[in-house]
């Protein structure tokens, strides 16, 4: 049986993870296809329907400008999920490169890279995220436009502050496999040091698990930033941004805050459970 299918067989044993995969797939599909099916414009202002509770016309209610929350959440979800995925890709790429270089090279390079990893691990991430955002936001906006500027900044900073666990995982894998026979065989065949990347596929399991968790963490980071009013502008209704707008009207319109909050929570919870299932699936010590 191929390793991939073996992992799938083991993953299926984790019932909750499978259920969560289905729920997450539903959310992703809704966000991708929803705006075509639910054709209410996201910025249609209707003052006669301000802060309405859920009804047939507006299944999730409306906000203080009478805008339809379902349409806004479907649209904003695309951005929230895209930020999560893109930030994860950056974190994983940086982490794999740093970890692999540190694991392959002995001596000062390894020591320096691990010092750097530890340094980044003890950076206070949210304050730093806020600081970078505050300092660079305006000029990037002028460069590539508001939406793209915020997106690039959020993704780069969140990704750039989350590569450390992956780097450690990959390095640990390199250290433990560097002296194994198949690497020695590759070396004996005259493979250069850089061909030692043979080791990399062996680190896939833990990296995939870390990648899953990173998506959840990035979604939370983006929502936090938007929730603090420092992320995306109001015309890009990410889930965190809707919560930020809703939090001052909770006594009149609790649904406005509850729905986006629930959606963030469910997305993060399902991703974390999938990560848990993948960890079981890729853990060679576990008999399933």
């Amino acid at each position: 049986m191929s390793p991939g299918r073996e992992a799938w067989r083991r993953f299926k044993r984790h019932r909750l993870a499978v259920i969560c995969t289905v729920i997450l797939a539903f959310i992703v599909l809704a966000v991708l296809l929803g705006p075509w099916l639910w054709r209410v414009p996201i910025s249609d202002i209707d003052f006669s329907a301000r802060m309405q509770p859920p009804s047939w016309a507006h299944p999730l209610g409306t906000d203080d400008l009478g805008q339809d929350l379902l349409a806004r959440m479907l649209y904003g979800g695309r951005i929230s999920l895209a930020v999560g995925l893109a930030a994860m890709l950056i974190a994983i790429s940086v982490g794999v490169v740093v970890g692999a270089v540190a694991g392959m090279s002995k001596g000062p390079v390894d020591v320096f890279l691990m010092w750097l990893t530890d340094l980044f691990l003890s950076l206070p991430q949210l304050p730093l995220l806020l600081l970078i955002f505050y300092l660079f936001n305006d000029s990037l906006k002028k460069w590539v436009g508001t939406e793209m500027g915020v997106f690039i900044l959020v993704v780069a900073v969140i990704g750039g502050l989350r590569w450390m666990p992956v780097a450690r995982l990959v390095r640990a894998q390199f250290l433990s496999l560097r002296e194994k026979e198949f690497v020695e065989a590759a070396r004996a065949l005259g493979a250069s040091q850089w061909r030692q990347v043979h080791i990399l596929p062996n680190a896939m399991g833990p990296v995939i698990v870390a990648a899953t968790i990173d998506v959840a963490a990035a979604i939370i980071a983006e929502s936090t930033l938007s929730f603090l009013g420092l992320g995306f502008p109001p015309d890009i209704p990410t889930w965190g941004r809707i919560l930020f707008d809703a939090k001052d009207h909770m006594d009149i319109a609790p649904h406005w805050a509850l729905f986006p909050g629930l959606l963030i929570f469910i997305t993060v919870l399902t991703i974390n459970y999938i990560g848990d299932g993948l960890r079981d699936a890729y853990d060679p010590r576990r008999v399933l």
Partner: protein
Amino acid sequence: MFSYILRRILIAVPSLLGISFVLFSVLALAPGDPFGELVNNPNIPAEVAAALRAKFGLDDPLMVRYWNWLSAMVQGDWGFSFISRVDVETLIMQRLPITLLVIGSSQILALCIAIPVGVYAASKPYSLFDQVASTLAFIGFSLPTFFTGILLILFFSIQLDWLPFVYRADIAETGWRFYWEHLKQMIMPVTVLGLFQAGSWTRYVRSAVLDVIRLDYVTTARSKGLSEKVVITKHVLRNALIPVVTLVALQMPAIFGGAIVTEQIFRVPGIGSLIISSMLANDTPVIMAVTFVFSALVIACNLLADIVYGWLDPRISFA
């Protein structure tokens, strides 16, 4: 022990320097000028602006500027807030105690939940209690702090009207009422932060105890006739806590992030809400100083974790 602590402090210094350098580079690389407003103001002649730039050393090489900034920070001269019109260090010293109080109490709350629940769940693995606790822990750390805060406000402040949702520093009561009012407004922020941490820590404690509880020395302790309570508290827990301490220290940056969100939701006047309001008001010196304080706190917590580690693990030699 003393030389061990000293060695740890010596290791912490380069990290603090490294972090301060990262912070400074971010500031230096940022487009725009901290004195931009002054320089672009047409009422200020070019030579005055140039003199100002020279006076504040803005045209010096990066390393010189870093050195000047660092020595000023070390001497406690953190600059002057553009908005509040007071020294930054005064502002931060006013706000820091409340942040430390909220974070400290929430950590104690988290430990009081995580250790008993984690140990009990691990001593009966895969029982009903274990499964319920694991599920709740998963929910606990998947719930973002801002959403827990909103839920608590909706339920306890708006529905039940039990707790105030705006933190007030000036309570016009005296005696017992004063403390009671303070306690009441602390409950929700502390719970939000504490529950978030308790979720992940319960998982750590559970898996650490599970790793230890099957070891031979625990069986030996049991077969000596020691009571289960003594075995768990004296033999298992101490060993299990060693990896937990490391994980807790690694979580510190996330805890400070959660503190910023919590302070912002409940309007707690700590340094977390200070950084947000300074950002909205473009008060750069305060933002830099608060970020620096947060970094220093993270390093201090790592140091503390190392010391606790040395106390818990007799294999670490102090020599």
